């Protein structure tokens, strides 16, 4: 990722998501560019869709194929154009679109020929047993929402980790990440953190506070990119919190 100010980078990132979708569907774009955009899109939103398919009863490979094919279908047929931001959230749109997709069995074979193996490698990182265990007691939609929430958090953390890496503080990020959501000051073990990171407590206090603020901003930005307007961010977050709590 290019090195640039956090604010401008965030703004660029938000537009980049939709831009990615648009670029992936641009018929004038080269196949390489289309595949690159597709890969980025899949990396962000594949997990919820995959878990949904798994909950639906599809096997691992079938679920992978369907997920990959779905994104390809989404781009090739410009199905993203139907994601009317004035009428719903992107999360809900994707789920509806996926449901429609799997209803059409003709896309299944087509998905195997597109997308390459980029997603497959990602899928290997997942622990299916754990996901299957948790998904056993939930409905498919609930599983989808939960994974969507988890994906948002992971995306925000990844972006924060990238920023820290650019600032040469990736190691510090690894130490403070468990405390990014600590509700009380007393719950933060500064002394232990200082001992392990070989940093002063005062420095850790400041850095943690700064990273907490930055994480929160990134998370809200990620959510902002999936809702209609800024006022819906809190509502979406509460919905997703409820989904996680129900799990």
């Amino acid at each position, binding site marked *: 990722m290019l090195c640039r100010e956090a604010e401008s980078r965030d703004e660029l990132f938000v537009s980049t998501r939709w831009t990615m979708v648009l670029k992936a569907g641009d018929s004038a774009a080269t196949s390489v560019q289309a595949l690159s955009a597709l890969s980025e899109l899949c990396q962000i939103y594949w997990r919820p869709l995959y878990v949904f398919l798994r909950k639906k009863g599809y096997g691992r490979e079938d679920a992978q194929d369907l997920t990959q094919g779905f994104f390809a279908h989404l781009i090739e047929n410009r199905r993203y154009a139907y994601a009317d931001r004035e009428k719903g959230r992107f999360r809900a749109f994707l789920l509806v679109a996926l449901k429609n997709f799997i209803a059409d069995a003709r896309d299944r074979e087509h998905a195997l020929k597109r997308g390459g193996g980029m997603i497959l490698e990602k899928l290997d990182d997942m622990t299916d047993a754990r996901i299957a265990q948790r998904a056993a007691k939930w409905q498919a939609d609930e599983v989808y929402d939960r994974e969507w929430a988890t994906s948002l958090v992971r995306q*925000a953390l990844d972006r924060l980790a990238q920023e820290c890496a650019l600032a040469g503080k990736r190691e510090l990020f690894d130490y403070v990440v468990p405390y990014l959501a600590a509700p009380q000051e007393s*719950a933060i073990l500064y002394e232990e953190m200082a001992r392990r990171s070989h940093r002063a407590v005062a420095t850790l206090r400041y850095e943690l506070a700064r990273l907490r603020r930055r994480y929160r901003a990134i998370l809200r930005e990620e959510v902002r990119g999936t809702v209609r307007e800024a006022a819906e961010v809190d509502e979406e977050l509460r919905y997703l919190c409820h989904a*996680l709590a129900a799990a």
Partner: protein
Amino acid sequence: MQPAAAEISTCPNCCGALEETSGGRLACMACLLRAGISGEDDVPRDSGLDAFEGDEHFGVYQIDRRDHESLYKLGHGAMGTTYRATDMSLQRKVALKIIRLGIAGRSKEARERFLREARAAAAVRHENIATVFQFGIREETGQCFYAMELIEGETLEERVRRAGPLDTRTTIVIAQQVTAALAAAEKRGLIHRDLKPANLMLVDSDESQVVGRDRWARREWAAQHAVPAVKVIDFGLAKTLHAPIDPMRLTHDGFLGTPAFASPEQFENSALDVRSDIYSLGVTLWFALTGKTPFAGRSVQEIHRAQESNVFPIGQLKSARVPSRLRLLLKSMLAFEPATRPGTHKLAAELRRCAAQATGARRTRLVLAAVATLIPVASASFVFYSLRTHSAPPSSVATLIPVASASFVFHSPRTHSAPPSSGLNPALPEKSPAVLPFENLSSEPDSAFLAHVLHDDVLTKLANIADLKIISRTSVMRYSDKEDVREDALAERDPGAAASAENVFGDDTVHFNQIFIDSVVARTATTPAPFVEMDQKVIPTMKRYRASPQIAQERSQYKRINRKRTLWDKLRYGWAKHPYRVKKK
């Protein structure tokens, strides 16, 4: 990287399952998601993080922390936040001010000019200017800071808001100190530009610093330290921060400075000199005397219009009993045209004259208070003398000579009311004192002459006090031996006064009677010691001295004698309607 099997562990906050995040660490997704909701902001942020970025080290200084781990904040203002810090190299406490504005991104010339001007301000050395130790810029954040001497006290603003307006004398002394500071800075071409009560630190005297129980040393020290020492802070800082390179925006419609205390030329962005500070000092003194500012307004424009009108609410000063000379001086300091205001030298001279006037008026009030309190005590036989002689045999010298009893009676009450109490000065009765004749209570008729000597001595000393009208000797002679008159006079006892009388007996020494009352130490002694010394410290305690067994016995006799007088009983046992019944020995 093949991930390890995810550990099943729960969140200590919500008991939810932890999940693996980037980097392989476990975290609670629910809590992390909840952290993004507005209003559910996480851990209470450290208060100091709002004031500056980065850690709490600024050069060799480290900001102190309180017991509960928060930063040791001393104060907060428009220009920045002040913390208590430690000079790690010298291990001394300092006041570290982190200036709100950073100069990162400015040109090199601008930064150098900023530092140059700041160092010029820091170079001023005066006992009434808070010493600035270091002025610096933290490069990594571009934040400016300066370290100055840590002053344990309160600002003038805090003092007035806490204890009410100050008395004239204290205000004048404060003004003299600030004037001296302005003069010292003027020699270096430096002006404050933001002089106001919040930038004047008051350091009270600490009587405990007097070592030992030397009464005389304590009195001298108390007389010198009755009013607080003043330290002007943030001297020159406003100028350096108001430089064109960094136009500081304040909350008063963009006005630079504090409008209520700013000079007219500051409103007009005209060239400033020390007279601008003198104007601000005038407003500050007005505030100290009245608790208000002369020009009020809800906006910068309103305040400036009030200044232009040149109409002063003199009634505020009159209500505060500000002497006429000081009122005139304040008016001159608040003149709209800078040229008509006094300079630092003239201001210092005028303040000296005002101080002399205020001291004379205060002495008058103190004597009246002293006399009002002396009545209950003076009626008893508490004045004893023993003459220092070298040739006379000890037996004649050691003889107890109860000379007389003196009474002070208030006569001819004045018509005007007493000045309001300011917390430092008690309510003062408006009476004319009269010195009643002394009585010889000794068994030696040869000592009767001392009664006349003492009476003349008291009259002479009191007559030397300006503005104190003493009832003539002829008029009071008719009150001799009139117990009723004394009782009537005693009815006006000042309940706030704590009076006591002590007698010291001894051989070959000059004895004196010392009376400690509100703000006055009255001491009677043979010549050449003065009769009355005006002390400015409230000493409500009784002083006792050791005495020989013979003297102790005689003192007990004295006490017995005193007890026979209902006045003493009333002192000890309250102002009862019925006289205290003396217990017979």
